[in-house]
């Protein structure tokens, strides 16, 4: 069973950190482990496409198309982060920023974090889903506060408090869902697979109130504005490979949780309510983040605000609800994860070479770090939705769906703010990447594993963008199946 490999390998690796003391050696083992996880997740995805769904451990684990997509996304970013960590952590150890013991603590947290993120899409019970999401917060708080500086501890504190308070509201929503289920005379259960078939007989008013709590609660974790205030702090202070995991996957696991509840709401016949709420929050996120992106000077914070923007786009896509829009949103989940990881890795390299975050004082990255510079340059175009990269395809799908369904205003807003953000990115990155080298900087070599990550992500970013154009019919058919539950 592939799912046991996916959940088991991170746990085994976490235990392994207590026995393997040399971080160099362990980084390589880590990579091999996550390679196995990636392979297993693709095998699992194939099985789900063929059979419809997988149940295991007496209904504790339930995997359908939606969850397998999120598991694949997680495993892709996890292997990239594992590969990138080797060089990044070694550099930190060599420069005496962290000790060897702390490096193995990093790998312990890294693996537990990945385990909790794999657990979120795999479980069936909505109660355990809540526990898994809270687990991701608790573990990643240590990774945000990893360097123990004033800034990072402040960011970690805001992160843990705001997300815990938000998630308490999500628990309230979960209990309201189970209340709606129990008053209709059915047996006590929080299993998603038990709730969906009977969704049409549940009390709609309770479901609506419950979904508002869910959206605010998990929306805090997903980074939907106006509950996003923790996000730029946490993402900019975390260790670089973890920033990629936070932005690329963690936000999406919360989106996944919202979708699970949303599907019950849709099945009960309240699709308009769901659509309007998702589109509203999506548009607010887009507007607020574009304002902050325009005035942002800090490199990693800029990328964090860009994550809020993309979560907004994803939320609009799922809100529109037609097969084309949902396909666009799911592809956007994948494309954003890949592209944003690449950008955060690049930002990590730049920050550790220049020792500063402020984009106005960083100059000549392409000369100092040729490989990273070019990767970031291309990644910037990909992130802002430039063809032929993959984000362009998914964004155009969502915009097309908005026009087809008559949401002209939403489509116009999307186009306007995407253009604004594109301009802001070109302006900020252009000055940072080009220009003369500052005095005392020389061009640096880059480690092989770092280069490999960029190539791997770039291949996905570009390849998916080109392949998708020819495969969209099959994918639309799969999305229709996914929407049917």
């Amino acid at each position, binding site marked *: 069973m592939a799912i046991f490999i996916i959940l088991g390998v991170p746990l085994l690796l976490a235990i392994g950190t207590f026995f393997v003391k040399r971080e160099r050696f362990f980084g390589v083992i880590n990579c091999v482990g996550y390679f196995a996880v990636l392979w297993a997740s693709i095998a699992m995805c194939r099985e789900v496409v063929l059979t419809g769904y997988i149940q295991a451990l007496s209904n504790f684990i339930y995997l359908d198309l939606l969850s397998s997509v999120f598991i694949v996304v997680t495993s892709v970013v996890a292997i990239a982060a594992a590969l990138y960590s080797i060089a990044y952590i070694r550099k930190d150890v060599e420069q005496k920023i962290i000790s060897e013991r702390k490096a193995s603590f990093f790998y312990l947290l890294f693996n537990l974090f990945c385990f909790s993120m794999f657990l979120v899409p795999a479980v069936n*019970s909505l*109660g*355990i889903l*809540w*526990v898994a999401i*809270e*687990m991701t*917060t*608790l573990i990643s*708080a*240590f990774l945000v*506060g990893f360097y*123990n*500086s*004033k*800034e990072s*501890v*402040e*960011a*970690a*504190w*805001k992160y*843990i*408090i705001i997300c*815990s*308070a938000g998630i*308490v*509201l999500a*628990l*309230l929503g*979960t*209990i309201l869902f*189970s*209340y709606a289920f*129990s*008053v209709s005379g059915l047996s*006590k*259960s*929080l299993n998603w697979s038990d709730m969906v078939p009977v969704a049409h007989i549940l*009390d709609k*008013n*309770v479901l609506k*109130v419950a979904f508002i709590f869910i959206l605010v609660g998990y929306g805090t974790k997903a980074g939907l504005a106006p509950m996003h205030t923790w996000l*730029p*702090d946490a993402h*900019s*202070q975390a260790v670089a490979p973890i920033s990629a995991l936070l932005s690329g996957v963690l936000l999406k696991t919360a989106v996944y949780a919202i979708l699970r509840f949303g599907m019950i709401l849709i099945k009960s016949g309240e699709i308009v309510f769901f659509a309007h709420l998702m589109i509203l929050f999506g548009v607010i996120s887009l507007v607020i983040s574009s304002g*902050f992106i325009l*005035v*942002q000077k*800090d490199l990693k*914070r800029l990328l964090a605000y860009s994550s809020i923007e993309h979560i907004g786009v994803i939320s609009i896509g799922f809100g529109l609800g037609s097969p084309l829009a949902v396909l666009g949103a799911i592809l956007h989940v994948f494309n954003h994860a890949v592209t944003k990881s690449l950008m955060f890795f690049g930002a990590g390299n730049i920050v550790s070479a220049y020792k500063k975050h402020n984009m106005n004082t960083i100059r000549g990255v392409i000369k100092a770090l040729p490989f990273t510079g070019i990767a970031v340059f291309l990644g910037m175009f990909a992130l802002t939705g430039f063809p032929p990269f993959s984000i362009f395809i998914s964004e155009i799908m969502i915009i097309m769906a908005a026009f087809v369904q008559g949401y002209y205003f939403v489509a116009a807003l999307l186009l306007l703010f995407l253009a604004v953000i594109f301009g802001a990115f070109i302006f900020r990155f252009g000055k940072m990447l080009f220009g003369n080298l500052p005095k005392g900087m020389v061009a640096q070599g880059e480690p092989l594993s770092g280069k490999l990550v960029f190539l791997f992500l770039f291949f996905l970013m570009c390849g998916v963008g080109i392949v998708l154009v020819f495969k969209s019919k099959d994918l639309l058919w799969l999305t229709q199946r996914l929407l049917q539950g």
Partner: protein
Amino acid sequence: MQGIILFLLLASTYLMIIAKRMPALIRSFRYQSLFLFLATLLAAFHEKQIELYLVAMMIIFLKVFLIPYFLNVTAKRIKVDENLGLFVNPQLSLVFALIFTYCSWVLSVNLGFGQGSLQSMAVTVAFSLIFNGAFLMISRMKAFTQVVGILVMENGIFLFASSVSGGMPFFAEIAVFFDVFVSVVIMGVFVFRINKLFTHIDVNKLSRLKG
């Protein structure tokens, strides 16, 4: 009987709202958890569910003894002054608390729990615990109050769960309990770190990250 316990739960929440010092806050939290334990025990007795008895045991073990003890130890070890640093004075806070209680009554009626019944009272108290917990989090200066605020919100949720649906499935409930405990410990660790780095735990002074 259940009405009296619900009243006491609400009263202990108001005690927390007007508390000015850390030990008073933690003591009131202990009372609140004790009444929550009694409410759950009563619900277990009425519905004759063994699982609810176990949940009640968990409440008394974790929320009445372990977590307040842990909070007290942490408060002693960080050696900051015990005042909570109120942004809103106690009288005004109490007015807010009463408004929240009224709002939660309106909410519970609108959700269709019926007027006047014990269940609607329980739901009202549960919602007002949640709102007051959130209010505690935003209206006090010390990082500690935010931890206690989250715990109050969670108490409200447990009351809600045990009064409307006879609790969640047992396995999920145990997992949630474990999670709550772990999160309190981890927040405690971060309070330590903040105290070590900043030599205070005033959250309003944590303002290095902006924009």
